[in-house]
């Protein structure tokens, strides 16, 4: 059901990890839906110098995280904001219909991270709205 590209991005994920001194961090999704995506950004002079992610989710979620973080590396904030979930999906040679929401999640995670960056630096980024919920859900305690 997944394209070769998706499988490839899933098997060889790029940019997994944290950025300790990130300039912006965004977490979207919730356990109810089965996907949580967290994006870390390092931003200098309006340019995304580095992007990393942590994702709890299916193969498509991991692949879109990989693809998105690759696509935004080195881009200006404005250019990065032009990237839509459709672009991410297209870059992966498509996603199964039930998995399209993963690409939306990626787009939202990016926006959440940029929002966080804007908040921290008291900037206004054109066209950027506050994320609907920055990790609003409580994560239930996970028992062994």
């Amino acid at each position, binding site marked *: 059901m997944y394209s070769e590209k998706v499988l490839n991005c899933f098997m060889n994920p790029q940019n997994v990890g944290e950025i300790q001194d990130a300039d912006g961090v965004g977490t979207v999704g919730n356990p109810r839906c089965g996907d949580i995506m*967290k994006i870390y950004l390092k931003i200098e002079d309006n340019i995304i110098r580095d992007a990393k992610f942590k994702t709890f989710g299916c193969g498509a979620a991991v692949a879109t995280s990989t693809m998105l973080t690759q696509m935004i590396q080195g881009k200006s904030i404005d250019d990065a904001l032009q990237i839509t979930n459709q672009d991410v999906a297209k870059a992966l040679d498509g996603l199964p219909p039930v998995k399209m929401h993963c690409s939306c999640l990626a787009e939202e995670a990016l926006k959440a991270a940029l929002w966080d960056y804007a908040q921290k630096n008291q900037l206004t980024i054109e066209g950027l709205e506050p994320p609907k919920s920055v990790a609003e859900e409580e*994560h239930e305690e996970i028992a062994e």
Partner: protein
Amino acid sequence: MIYFDHAATTPVRSEVLEAMLPFFSEKFGNASSVYKLAQVNKKALDDARAKVATILGAQPNEIYFTSGGTEANNWALKGMAEALRKQGNHLITTKIEHHAVLRTCQYLEKQGFEVTYLDVDENGLITPEQVEKALKKETILISIMYANNEIGTIMPVAEIGKIARTHGVIFHTDAVQAVGQLPIDVNRDQIDLLSLSGHKFYGPKGTGALYVRRGLPLPSLLHGGGQERGRRGGTENVPGIVGLATALELAYQDLDIKTAKIQALRDYMIDGIYQRIPHCRLNGDRTQRLPNNVNFSFAFVEGESLLLLLDLEGIAASSGSACTSGSLDPSHVLLALGLPHELAHGSLRLTLGENNTREEVDLLLEKLPLFVQRMRDMSPLYEDYLKQNS
């Protein structure tokens, strides 16, 4: 390829396919015709019916062939509801039934029936007392699965049968996962209707049967010709029915020996996973459990990603049930156990078959810990957990 998904479906056994083959192109007659060609088919049907009846401890004229477990479940529930509507409108079932029962119950609710969905405990079991307590004077049907398809829990069917009989309520059981693995006796267990499905015990897909206790006023679900003693229309799928009966008979040959082997492998797998992987949980009761079922939740990890990694290693398993894997909902069964959503999303079902070997399980035990760790390293939930506990 290592196949650990026998609860989803099984390959047709070679003896079964052999038994079916003559009925496709050679002995192809319509079993309802009068001429000789068709008598072979009628006899094949009669033999198949007798075999199925014998295995279930039933009479041949209590067996009705269907297109699968889903049709059998729909028929039993909608049929009895329609037939007994005048006596009452209340049904009792559980929260962890297969969708073929749950969605049928939801449909019946829209038709004005009231359904009690019994809670299960954290091991996926209900008690006979729960059933007894849920009874009302309007209760017309109890439908409780024999064994669960995701977590393998075996329900106290005999006790429920007794309660049903005592209170004069009809008892249906979806035995799709049990038939072929557990000895069944509809009289011992006082079962009034029982659903089974051929492809779960090395028979063909698209075949099933409903046991209907003699005298039950079950109306048709599929109206048509006079097949199945007037109760289920449609030209009989002779090759399929022959395949189902042959597979069923073979499943019960040396059942003890096969069960002992599979169960040992299951326990080896469960112990191995517990030993090698921290933060995991076996879903479903440890002992009241199908001999072939292993179901684990791995904290901080989503199930499908594990499936993919296993698949790329040539190991087929499942997460939730096969028929809902296209959807994004977490397993209703795991939620019913009280699992938080992360764990309900992070389950892996491994169901064994006769041909699985210890070497295959060893390979799984080698790979799975790596895969779980790999996904945990990627997981923001694991990150949070480590931070909180450092």
